[in-house]
């Protein structure tokens, strides 16, 4: 049933070799618009990691124990989206209770995450690749960390390119996309270490 991949291998693969952003193009919208400074990229990265870890577990349980037994897998898009929205809402409430400073940092990012394609994408990848529960959680967590790493790295580069003399038409999104392309090339360098699809 589920592919025979050791969770540790899967963790490294999801962070580096098949980085969700640089190899699978997921979560680009908020990636480009938020990566202007370091602080907010860190906040969003943390929030994405948290939500991804929780939703991949919840969606796995719902898929295995509700959708498949009832034979309504075709409804998975709607169900997954609702689960993601609910998880985001609950997380927001919990964070507000336990830590005000963390809430101040993450508060504005959490609602944005519901429409971040990375979250839904990971749940769909888990469904297609038939991961088991441990693999799903590890994969969700690793992908979140990979996304976090990528956005922080990009934010650091962008603070420099903002001041660089870039051709007028290339300013803004143009140079950002080329930078992401170069980062993606660097991450391809890792793919010699492991090969997990």
């Amino acid at each position, binding site marked *: 049933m589920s592919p025979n991949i050791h969770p540790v291998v899967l963790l490294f693969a999801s962070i580096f070799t098949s980085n969700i952003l640089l190899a699978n193009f997921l979560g680009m919208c908020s990636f480009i618009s938020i990566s202007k400074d370091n602080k907010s990229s860190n906040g969003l990265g943390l929030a994405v990691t948290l939500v991804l870890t929780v939703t991949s577990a919840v969606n796995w349980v719902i898929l295995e124990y509700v959708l498949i037994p009832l034979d309504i897998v075709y409804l998975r898009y709607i169900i997954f989206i609702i689960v993601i*929205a609910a998880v985001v809402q609950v997380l927001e409430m919990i964070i507000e209770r336990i830590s005000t400073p963390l809430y101040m940092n993450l508060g504005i990012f959490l609602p944005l995450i519901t429409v971040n394609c990375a979250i839904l*994408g990971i749940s769909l990848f888990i*469904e297609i690749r038939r991961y088991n529960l441990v693999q799903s959680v590890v994969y969700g967590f690793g992908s979140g960390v990979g996304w976090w790493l990528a956005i922080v790295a990009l934010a650091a580069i962008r603070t420099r390119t903002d001041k660089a003399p870039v051709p*007028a*038409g290339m300013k803004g999104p*143009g140079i*950002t996309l080329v930078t992401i392309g170069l980062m993606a*090339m660097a991450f391809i360098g890792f793919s010699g270490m492991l090969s997990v699809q």
Partner: protein
Amino acid sequence: MKSQASTVTILKENFWTNNPIFIQILGICSTLAVTNNLVNTGIMTVGVVFVTSFTNLTVSLIKSFIPRKVRMIVQTLIIAFYVIIVDLVLRAYLPEISKALGPYVGLIITNCIIMGRAEAFAQSNPPLISFWDGLTSGLGYMYVLLAIAFFRELLGFGTLFGYQVMPDGFVPWTIMIMAPSAFFLLGLFIWTAKAVMLRKGGAR
């Protein structure tokens, strides 16, 4: 007629001056991934055009019945409904392509263009013109991605729509099949488009 003038304006905005991809930088997530192949890109973007136009139509039709507070979730459900239709049609008639597209069909739901158009246009405009707006912004999205896919498939495989067009001695550029090339090409595309706009003096 009022709508006559605005249909042309909307067309022009969505195709050029306010193109979803190279001006608004929206919705590149799900579809960039499939741009190394023209057939897949074509089918994927047709799906997006279908979902955008009908979502806009539906949202515009029922906008007065939706309480403002829950409109986001209602919009998401409408989008998901149309995406499920696309997914089921693909599974039934084009199973090969459905498999190749994998999770990316489902990811049309989180494509920001659709939600963006529904929120920015359909929420405050009559149904027919909203449908037109959805259709044209979908098409504006489509041609950019087809252009990228054209170069990636041509240089990466030496083919167009699966047919060999490059001479036999052509060495495929492997980088074109891999992820970085999509970013580079989109970056260059945005550069070209913006440079043309700057020259015209109409840049925003």
